[in-house]
């Protein structure tokens, strides 16, 4: 058992040591993107694993990115303060939409479509307030000279890699924390049968609201990090339905019910997009999403537990036999 327990620590040490040994900027860039998106996908699956399929996470991510950048550009508020404000804003937005949904038992299709409306609103608001946000042309946080901790802007990729790695690890820790808590059992009961869970004394609305707020806070952080790293955001890359679907897709491919599933999903989808981009060059516009979409449909039909989930299942049955 000790080998199994020490494995995460060894892997973690290897991941921390990596940028000091290997510094190829393009590969580090891909790794940073994978880590940030893994964190975003993990945040989504916090809810998704309990049957709370939200298409509103594009909205939370957009709020996280835009609030941080707008506070910095217009009021000079440091991202260190701006990011918590953005996260709280996303959490409030989540509560405004989620509370009536849970209170009035809006589940299944209805919940998906209501949250879909949410990411639609955020996208339209960003586009409509183009005097401040740059509209669909995108938005760039004001640059400082060189790396500045105060502005959360760093020129070298190693710093960003370590930040992204840390946040990703925190995401996994939160997953584990939820996994070990009583709330997990409550939420699993709710996703099986709401009425039975309520009858057994589970506070359905409160439990769902808690996990939704955690998920929204994390997603907003992912959005803010993405903004600070890329230094360019546009409504289409951080908000809207396409981003929400992208999250769902990656998580389904990786595996919804295992902690590293979203990460595997991020690795696969980002590598796929990069390979297609390099392979097809500028002709790649559209091809990556075409492959994504076909894969998503095939996965849902043939491998609904995702790649990692299916592998783990296979290993477990082999051990039992």
């Amino acid at each position, binding site marked *: 058992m000790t080998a199994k327990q020490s494995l995460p620590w060894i892997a973690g040490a290897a991941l921390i040591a990596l940028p000091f040994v290997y510094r190829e900027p393009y590969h580090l860039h891909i790794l940073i993107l994978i880590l940030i998106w893994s964190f975003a996908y993990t945040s989504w699956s916090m809810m998704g694993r309990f049957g709370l399929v939200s298409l509103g996470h594009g909205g939370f991510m957009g709020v996280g990115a835009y609030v941080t950048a707008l506070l910095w550009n217009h009021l000079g508020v440091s991202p260190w303060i701006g990011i918590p404000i953005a996260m709280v804003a996303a959490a409030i937005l989540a509560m405004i939409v989620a509370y009536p949904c849970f209170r009035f038992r809006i589940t299944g299709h209805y919940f998906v479509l209501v949250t879909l*409306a949410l990411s639609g609103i955020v996208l339209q608001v960003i586009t409509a307030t183009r005097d401040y946000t740059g509209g669909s042309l995108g938005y760039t946080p004001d640059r400082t000279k060189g790396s500045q901790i105060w502005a959360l802007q760093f020129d070298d990729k190693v710093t960003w890699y370590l930040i992204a790695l840390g946040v990703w690890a925190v995401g996994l820790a939160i997953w584990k924390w939820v996994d070990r808590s009583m709330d997990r059992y409550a939420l699993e009961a709710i996703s099986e049968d709401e009425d039975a869970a309520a009858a057994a004394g589970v506070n359905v609305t409160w439990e769902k609201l808690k996990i939704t707020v955690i998920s929204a806070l994390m997603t907003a952080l992912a959005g803010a990090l993405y903004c600070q790293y890329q230094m360019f955001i546009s409504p289409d890359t951080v908000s809207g339905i396409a981003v929400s679907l992208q999250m769902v897709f990656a998580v389904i491919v990786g595996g919804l019910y295992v902690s590293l599933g979203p990460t595997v999903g991020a690795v696969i989808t980002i590598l796929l997009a990069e390979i297609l981009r390099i392979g097809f060059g500028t002709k790649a516009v559209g091809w990556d999403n075409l492959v994504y979409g076909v894969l998503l449909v095939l996965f*849902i039909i043939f491998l609904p537990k995702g790649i990692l989930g299916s592998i783990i299942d296979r290993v477990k049955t082999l051990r039992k036999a």
Partner: protein
Amino acid sequence: MTDIFDIYLLEAMVNGILLGGVLALLALGLNLIFGVIDVTWICYAELVMIGMYGMYYMVQVFGLPYYVAAPFAILLVAGLGALLHLLVIAPLLTAPPINQLLATGGVLFVLQSFATVAFGIDFRNLGIRMPVLKLFEMHLSYSRLLAFAAALIGMLLVYFFMKRTYIGTAIRAISQDRQIMALMGVDTRRIYLITSALGGALAGLAACLLVLQYDIHPFVGLSFGPITFLIVVLGGLGNFVGGFVAAFVFAEIISLGGLFSDLEWGYVLAFAFFIVMMFIRPAGLLARRS
């Protein structure tokens, strides 16, 4: 000054009603599919987009007259609807409903990127300029009037199909009780296929009408897709009358909101209205509170 303003207000309201007709058509299609098969086609607006490209190629490239091309476009999208059911929904009928919904989300990606790859991202249009009708100083375009009239006729046809034919009766019966109908000797698979084709045909009709007003590009579905879902949810999923009413409510909000500010604010208002309504009437506009 005030009476000129009123004319604009009236014009916006009339335009809202005209827009509502097409939205109601789309809502009917989605409701039909939800009511019978119990799935939501997230990619519904993308079917419309493919239909619009079909119209573009038939009219602009092959030079067919608009009214000849329209039936073909409707058939094309009806076929797509049936295909979508056979390839994606049918294998997932026993899967959790969420999976069906997400699979159609994947189809949304496929259709959008297929259009990007096949047709490019340029904006295209039919190049048909419809005259503008002047009525009491209001400017109403014929394309919108035509769209409204055709949408109403389309909905009436569906109504009579549902009320007067055997298949229509079976469809309505299935939407009331899915299990029993199979025992009554109705071939549910056939009914599902016909319903999907019918839903596709409605999307095709909407495509023929929207192509007169919108430029065509791979992401055009996003400009009316989300609003259609809101309409259907606000009306109550599967509630035909509710969807019809909600379509006009939304169209008016968008149209009037667009009059006072940008079009996006019209959409924002509509979305906000939707969320407020979810507080007040979570089961749909016409639902009775239990």
